[in-house]
């Protein structure tokens, strides 16, 4: 069996007998985690980094979501939208607010062709990393993966509580069975004559709105 042959070849090459469990990673191979600044500075850094990678950011106060959505629907000519079904987004009433604006709501459980025809996908954010402007999004039954991928515009709604100083602490929270993705700006390529082109396969625009802390 190839499995046993390969493992035996590895052991022979390393000069070791079978069955030894790997020892812990040496402490020297770890780096101290990044130390966070104060919360306001961290949030400012996050938004600045997102802007640097062509993301569009906005800080919303209580009750400003409806008006912000109206602005987005107009600016991006949103006709169809789909949303995560998390309790958080449901409590915010994102689908209802969009429907009130005349946007057709497509179920995130619809087939992929229907989701690809959406103009807007709305998601939450499970963790955000200020140093790089990165959003971490988990997958799950109420967080269908295509919502942040197929529509041409991605809107991510973020609470300041989701900020983490570094990848390490963020990974420690989300690791385990299941899927997650780190998103840093909209899709981009420089494959043709090194000209940076935004929106090649994934979303062509990324909006990150910060909601008030709960």
């Amino acid at each position, binding site marked *: 069996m190839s499995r046993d042959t390969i*493992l035996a070849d590895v052991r022979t090459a390393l000069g070791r007998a079978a069955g030894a469990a790997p020892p812990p990673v040496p402490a020297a191979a770890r*780096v101290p985690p990044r130390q966070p600044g104060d919360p306001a500075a961290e949030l400012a850094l996050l938004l600045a980094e997102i802007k640097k990678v062509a993301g569009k950011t906005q800080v919303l106060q209580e009750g400003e979501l409806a008006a912000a959505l109206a602005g987005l629907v107009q600016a991006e000519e949103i006709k169809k939208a789909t949303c995560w079904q998390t309790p958080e987004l449901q409590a915010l009433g994102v689908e209802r607010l969009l429907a009130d604006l005349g946007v057709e709501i497509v179920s995130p459980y619809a087939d992929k062709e229907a989701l690809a025809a959406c103009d807007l996908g709305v998601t939450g954010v499970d963790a955000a990393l200020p140093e790089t402007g990165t959003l971490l999004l988990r997958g799950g039954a109420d967080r269908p993966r*295509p919502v942040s991928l197929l529509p041409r515009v991605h809107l991510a709604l973020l609470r300041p509580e989701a900020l983490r100083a570094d990848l390490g602490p963020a990974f420690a929270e989300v690791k385990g069975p299941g899927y997650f993705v780190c998103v840093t700006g909209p899709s981009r390529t420089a494959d043709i004559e090194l000209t940076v082109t935004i929106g090649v396969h994934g979303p062509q625009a990324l909006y990150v709105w910060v909601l008030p802390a709960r």
Partner: protein
Amino acid sequence: MSEIPTHIDFRANVQAVRPEMPASVQKATARFLGTRANVVGELGEARWQQLRQAGHDIRLHTLEHLDGYLALLEQRVTEAGGHVHWARDAAEANRIVLEIAARHGVKRAVKAKSMATEEIGLNHALAEAGISVLETDLGEFIIQLAGVGPSHIIVPAVHLTKEGIARLFTEKLGVDAPADPFALAAIARRTLRQAFLEADMGISGANFLVAETGTLVIVSNEGNGRMCTTLPRLHVAVVGIDKVVPDMESLNVLLKLLPRSATGQKMSCYISFITGPRGSDGEGGPQEFHLVLLDNGRTRILQDEIARQTLLCIRCGVCLNVCPVYNHVGGHAYGFAYSGPIGAILSPQLLGGKVAGDLPFASSLCGACAEYCPVKIPIPEILIQLRRRVVEGDRVEGPSAPPVIRVAAGVGGLAFRLPWLYEFGTQVLKVAQAPLRRDGWLPALPPPVNRWTLARPFPAFAADFRQWWRSRTPAGRRKMQQRRIGAVALIAAAVGLLSWLLGRRGRQ
């Protein structure tokens, strides 16, 4: 470029490099080095060096305990509902993928950029089985349409102009394509979006495999990696066994090193963390996940303690960007999926010295690659080790250089050890070269040394330095005089001896 090479002749390949290649390659390498310098500078030199050392330590620790980590990885992927396959070589890996495809009646596959599948020639195998496979990274898509190999590991189509790509799209896709990068990207988006939605199987490689959790990690900018691993009902990943890392904490280091070194980004746009198939129908994502763990020569690479460090590589491509040789020839000359300094050490170990023994010599040993490598691979040291392997052989592989090269290297080595032999040799060559000499150059040498003069003339042997040096002092001049008398006496004695011997033979 989906064919596995049977012989790589670097010198001949260099002759085939088009004159515009260095200019376009250097545009890319200069861009990446510039953006890299910015983001590394932002972190600070001390922090960067700390990260490099940690990256090296993590990768080396994993290699030294690879058996245990592979077993753990297999267990975790299986627990997450994935299927793990093991392939000793390219043929077995291709067979496994074809069997999975056949079981699911796959007709159309989409593929995210993957070096491992290039290495095994998977596209070729799929096409032979009647399965259409589309490269979806924009650069890979372009070179697949053009039917050429990658010229750079990160931007594979950098040698093609927008005008050339526009002609290609017009011809192959039947659309009216203007010579504008944005319009061309939009055409590719439309074409490939349809392919993503229609495909039955997504194929990917991986940047990392996390043993602790059984997680496949894919780093991309365009989002094609996400498409290939989210939309088709079946996801097959082909990944070298060297891609394992112990745990998520290790990625905290490696994901800081990779994007900064590769494209000069602090973070790539998308990093997917895939653990098994989808958790529920509502989540979306593939129903079945297969991981093919590929050896294909890697366990042999592990045998040597120095050369083993080749497998630390995280495929960032920075060694290409800083390499003076790569910058002058581009990726095609290396004749395989891997180019530049990493290609020069990886290809000969994967393919063997008989196929790729030329490549360790395609370097000036300047050491820039080792200075920049984010996981501190001692590339020059490995190059020298592999040169020795090609000529003399070692416990991993016997010598693969033609015997004449080995004899010549032996004679050369002897001459450098014995000054009198060296001096004698240069004087002999000075005389012997006369029939070939034209205007101070040797434009054509006889085989096997014609390998040099195929590319450029060889300077004629002058060898006057030692004479000039001695002639500066009276003592030196006296010594020269004595030597000349000695040489004449020696030659006279030799001629005498020879004629006596010939005379004796004639009498017998």
